[in-house]
């Protein structure tokens, strides 16, 4: 039997500590970077303090998610951890056992099968793709997708190395820390996940790379931001087109387009390109950068979480999650908002 799948609950955890863009760019003595905040739309980002790391953000996000859910930890059949950074105990990168297994132990999800995936900023969306498939096949009923990103450490390396406004490490300054979690469940009605489609255009895999430092804690990232943005927008057209066709929706029937949150200028120019191509526009394009920055694999679920809590979504809204990640991964998930809005206090 082919089951349906829907997002049941979402949780998030942001660190308390903030760093404003003004504070950050003041550390660089480059005049044209002063407009960085204006271009990116990022006023501040949240960063981990002592005692916080990828693991603590992930587990806190899961506990938050469970507080909105009808499920208890022991009801979870599968846990997929999707974070890029796997820092536990400061900037110690953890390999084995998997983060998912550690989260399972921490929350007491004794019946869950666990594994980690890593797919750059498309991590959580890849998790949705896999979970949907397992649920539709009837293999599991519930899946917890989680990610904890302690990724702001990359900006420390960037601050030491940026010499000009053309530096490949400039995009590291957009990053902020966050944990996010979502429970996907088996559904018997058609409200929920409609379509998910992903592709990796590996021709562009060298445009954004990040790896471990050899001699200093943490890692660093180098990106040809303009090139990757241009490639992502132009190459995503067939994928978006395909997803719309499969879902039976037109572009103007999308109530909320939620793209990967990189910078305001790239989201706006990307949305304009779509409008030009499709001849239609979605009702709203969600930009959630101002207080949190780019939170890597968690951006979509952090945006959903924030807008659910602000009661901005309505039952029946068509949501399109659009992810771009280094690889180059382009992915689309379309779903219909359903009773989840009530769980976040929206009575309408």
């Amino acid at each position, binding site marked *: 039997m082919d089951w349906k799948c829907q997002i049941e609950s979402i949780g998030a955890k942001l660190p308390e500590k903030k760093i404003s863009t003004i504070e950050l760019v003041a550390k660089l003595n480059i005049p044209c970077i002063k407009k960085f905040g204006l271009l990116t739309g990022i006023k501040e980002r949240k960063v981990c303090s002592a005692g916080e790391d990828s693991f603590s953000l992930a587990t806190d996000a899961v506990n938050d998610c469970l507080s909105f859910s009808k499920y208890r930890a022991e009801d979870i059949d599968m846990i997929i951890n999707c974070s890029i950074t796997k820092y536990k105990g400061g900037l110690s*990168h953890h390999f084995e056992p998997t983060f998912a297994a550690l989260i399972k132990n921490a929350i007491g999800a004794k019946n869950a099968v666990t594994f980690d995936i890593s797919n750059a900023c498309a991590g959580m969306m890849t998790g949705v793709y896999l979970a949907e498939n397992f649920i539709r096949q009837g293999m599991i009923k519930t899946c917890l997708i989680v990610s904890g990103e302690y990724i702001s450490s990359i900006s420390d390396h960037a601050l030491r190395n940026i010499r000009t406004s053309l530096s490949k490490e400039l995009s590291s300054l957009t990053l902020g820390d966050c944990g996010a979690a979502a429970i996907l469940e088996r559904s018997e009605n058609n409200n929920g996940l409609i379509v998910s489609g992903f592709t990796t255009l590996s021709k562009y895999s060298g445009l954004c790379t990040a790896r471990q430092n050899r001699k200093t804690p943490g890692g660093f990232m180098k990106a040809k931001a303009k090139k990757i943005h241009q490639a992502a927008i132009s190459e995503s057209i067939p994928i978006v087109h395909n997803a719309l066709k499969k879902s039976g929706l037109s572009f103007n029937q999308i109530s909320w387009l939620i793209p990967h949150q990189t910078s305001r200028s790239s989201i706006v120019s990307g949305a304009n390109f779509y409008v030009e191509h499709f001849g239609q526009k979605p009702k709203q394009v969600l930009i959630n950068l101002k207080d949190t920055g780019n939170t890597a694999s968690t951006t979509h679920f952090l945006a959903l979480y924030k807008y659910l809590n602000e009661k901005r979504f309505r039952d029946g809204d068509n949501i399109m999650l659009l992810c771009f990640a280094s690889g180059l*991964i382009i992915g689309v998930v379309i779903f219909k908002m359903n009773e989840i809005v009530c769980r976040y206090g929206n009575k309408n």
Partner: protein
Amino acid sequence: MGTKIEMVSVAEPWFNFLPRNSIELTARVARKCINEARINVNDLGLLINTGIYRYKNFGEPAIAALIQKKIGANTNNDTESNRPGKTFSFDLNNGGCGWLTGIQILQELMISKKINYGMVVTGDAEPFYGLSENFNFKTAAAAIILSRSKDSEGFTQFKTYSYPDHPEELTSSINYNYQRQKSKRKNILYVRQKDTYPDLCAMYACESLNSFMDESGLKIKDIDLIIPSQSPDGWIRKVKKIIGSNDKFIEYQKNGKKMLHTAGPAFALKQVWSDNRFKSSKHIIFLTVGSGINVSVAHYFNQN
């Protein structure tokens, strides 16, 4: 309908002093696997990398994306038909069970008819040469290609059993080694394995195998081959002792002190694939163990 193995390939560095780059080695074995399977690389719908210890500990992009580029599998959208590129790739980590978990994901996507062919690659190497402690894993890589079978041949059932009381038996992490002298400060990979780990793996593998047999209605005497993980050292000997079917377990002959990690079961499979024992066997069990402790079991059926 099942998911059958088209080809399995394995690789080790040509010279011990040369390639310690897990990405290059994994790409080499992936190319070899495609050539040996005689399939069109653009038919691959999914590429999963399950290696854990990667060259320079790359965080992004996924190693699978880099390998996809190196083997040339749908690196771009199909511009003629204006269709999206057909290959999706990502990395998966589930310790010593990752390779089998990757195969299970391929199976699920094949059943749902999302893909026709998929490949799981895996490769481990010291991330930074010489910057590790107790890294006893051999530099090795493996690839397996699966396709959708029209009959009952192929993988029929997968099951993972967790024993979460022992997360400390095998741990690994990169920690910053702070030294007074700045030039000596480095990130070091530490692998810590307790002496009791092989015993626990053997005990839980037997328990899991028995549960799997009960659930699937199979009996140990019906099984022709058991393809196990090749690490930790000594666990196969212990599990053979408990189960008592020595000839069914495939153990890859070790060359040196280092163990095969995520590629271990693929090396064992390659051994019986090459000498035709795999194809002449009817019921085959894949039995993997990994940190956590996790045990994954799968049944493969051959229509002789």
